[in-house]
């Protein structure tokens, strides 16, 4: 059964089961591999995308619910990797292995869209993605830097 997904402003017809999680439709069918697989149970956040501007863990979001939704992945967050969050991530060299960072950036960009000057506690509550390398100190600093630069 063919389902239409609007990803980064472009319509894609995907012919996979409607229970397919958005993560796998993006990676294996549409071919956008920036969104990552870490756990499959929405525990790690590596699969975070925006759906109508909200951060969503795509590994547990079946595509059947996404007709008409505006999906944004890391590839579509900005034209030239120049979203303030991405800029701040570069300025402070946040990534180490980098595997969690697509999800981190999508979570952080959604946070500052919602709360343009987030408090320490708001950052704690919103940034629950797992980073196995432990880049957390720089993530926090980069969110503050992005706010300053925006």
């Amino acid at each position: 059964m063919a389902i239409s997904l609007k990803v980064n402003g472009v319509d894609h017809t995907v012919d996979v089961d409607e229970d397919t999680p958005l993560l796998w439709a993006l990676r294996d069918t549409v071919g956008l591999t920036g969104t990552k697989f870490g756990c499959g149970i929405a525990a790690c956040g590596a699969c975070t995308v925006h759906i109508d501007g909200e951060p969503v863990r795509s590994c547990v979001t079946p595509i059947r619910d996404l007709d008409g939704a505006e999906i944004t992945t890391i590839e579509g967050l900005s034209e030239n990797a120049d979203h303030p969050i991405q800029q701040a991530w570069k300025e402070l060299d946040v990534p180490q292995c980098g595997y969690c960072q697509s999800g981190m950036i999508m979570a952080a960009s959604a946070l500052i869209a919602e709360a343009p000057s987030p408090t320490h506690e708001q950052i704690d509550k919103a940034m629950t993605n797992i980073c196995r390398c432990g880049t957390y100190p720089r993530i926090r600093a980069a969110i503050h830097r992005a706010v300053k630069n925006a």
Partner: protein
Amino acid sequence: MTTIDVSRRGFLKSSAAASGALVLGFAAPSLVKHAHAVGGGKLNAWLEVTTDGVVRIAQPQSEMGQGIWTSMAQLIAEELEVDWEQVEIYSPPAGPDFAHPFYGFQTTAESFSIRAFWEPARTVGAQAREMLKMAAGEIWGVYPGSLSAKAGHIVNPVTGQEAPYAALVTQAAKYQPPETVQLKRPDQWTIIGKPIPRDDTPAKVNGSAVYGIDVKLDGMLTAVPLFAPSFTGKVGAVDDAAALAIKGVKQVVPLEDVVYVVADGYWPAKKGVEALNVTWDLGEGGDFSTAKAFETFHAAAADGKGAVVEETGDVDALMGSAATKVDVTFEAPYLIHATMEPMNATAHYTDEKLTIWAPTQAQGLMGFVAGAVGLDAEKVEAHTTFLGGGLGRRFEIDLPIHAALVSKATGTPIKVLWSREDDSRRDFYRPGAVAHMHAAIDAAGKVTGFEAKIAGPSILARAVPDLAKDDVDHTNIDGIAQTTTPAGVPSHRQYDFGEGARVIHAMENTPIPVGFWRSVAHSQNGWFMEAFINEIAAETGQDPVELRLGLMKEARNRQVLERLAEKANWGSPAEGNAQGIAIHDAFGTVLGHVIEIAVTEKAIKLVKITSVADVGFAVNPDTLEAQISSGAITGLTAALWGEATMEKGVIDQGNFDSPALRMLKLAETPVFDIEIMELGGSIGGIGEPSTPPVAPALAHAVFNATGEKVRKLPLTSLGYDLA
């Protein structure tokens, strides 16, 4: 499982950076490709200059977050004399040109990239620089020694004539590299020692970085496993009818201990796995448990079974006549790696050639993968992607072998992709171990004798049997024994216990596979050693810093410890808080932590970590700082929650919702205060040294806060958790 025969050569040298002998790819002139007539071309396996002056530097080590993608290139670029803006870094196909100077085959392990390539990589750059001067000298008819190199140009300082490297590289490639070259002095460095921004950061913030899981090939199918519920299990009968009926599933491929479902994507393959019906022959491991393993370890350690790996003085007499004895039994659990990127490998088999794409740490072992599918070792071409974490797990070649076998069965390129649960349950775990530790103390509080009786499984007995000769594996004793193993590998301890020391290790192998986990031997031996030192201090009423200063052999270690104590205000935590301290010497680096916590009942708040490390020389201070917090967070996660347990043949832990696989989050992370010292001497590694001192420092802080002695990890096993 594959075992490896390596010559002893690499391991007979000291564990410090390998001396001289550079065996890096300077191809004979006839083998060098000549590029365009207008300039540009390949100088050797490491270096290419394009017509527009881009200097392409090969980076053959595995980038898993350490930042060597950038810092390795800094070594070469410095000597080559190019502006960093001209540099383009890329991952080359694996090859003998990139053999690790110490191990003799291409691999990234033991925090040993920068320190092993420290001399050889700078020499590659310097030799290239001199060969470019020789080319200019020949073209201009002048003595090359009178020429200088600057910003990608060879310049004649007398005439002002200059030529870009692109115009010279083809000619330069014809020469034999000079045997002796002059390397720059530290005060001349403009690239080494600078916090150069990571070259891979842009790709890692825009989603374009390619990890193993992201590899895409025409006709590629995805293979997802169903494993036997036992490490010794074998496939019996396979009923795949329901799996094959699922849309997208193409084929079902049974191997020896696992069945792979092959489909046009991960999701249909996963559904196919759930629809499989397989009967298994569980083998002897079907009934095994970690409780049984630890029973064996406890008994062996208590009895002092096994090999005496170190013995000086008369330890029995010293223990017998001691004024005070400190006797403690410690335990360290099995640990799961849990790299952020689940395990995967991609292979394309043809009867002519095997091509592998993988987030691997063992490029140089891919010849064994070729052998597994009946091809000669030279018939393999291996490509290294970025690694979403390595932690030592990616040194194993089990997935490349699976991918090659499945590709051979399907006739297509195959990406083997494991779920998080498969990843956790089919790990090569950090070995569990038990250590009985004894110290003889005289009336003045001085340690006069030391004994450690350790029991646990051996990694090398499986992975590299030659190195486990006479049942002594240095990865079981390094950090706690001062000795050389029968296989010729040195093991080091930073403390001298005076009149007598004895270390015994009982190699007790079990069906639970064990492998290299971040800091390997030091992850459990740093725990045993440092926790024991802290107990001696407490028992004898001595300050833990003063006690260590009296026991340390090297002035360097004392210097780092003193700086740590000063920086952390040792002995003066904030009101209501407690501190703990530990310091370890491994991988050429001396690194210590003071961890400050607040404890209420059994609820811990991590307040601050102060870390001081001496690395000899800092190639990139920014990536060094990042790795120190990284290794510490690995250590914190493990000390708080980490363990792999098994009740009946299957590891209990599967995904991050399992308490023992809980990962530290941003909200829980303490403040870091990190200082890097550069005391000269040899250059040290940084990928792993920050992990070993964490568990003992944290346990010490808990003791200072509560009075409870922590002898077992994780802390949750004693009822502690984060607030």
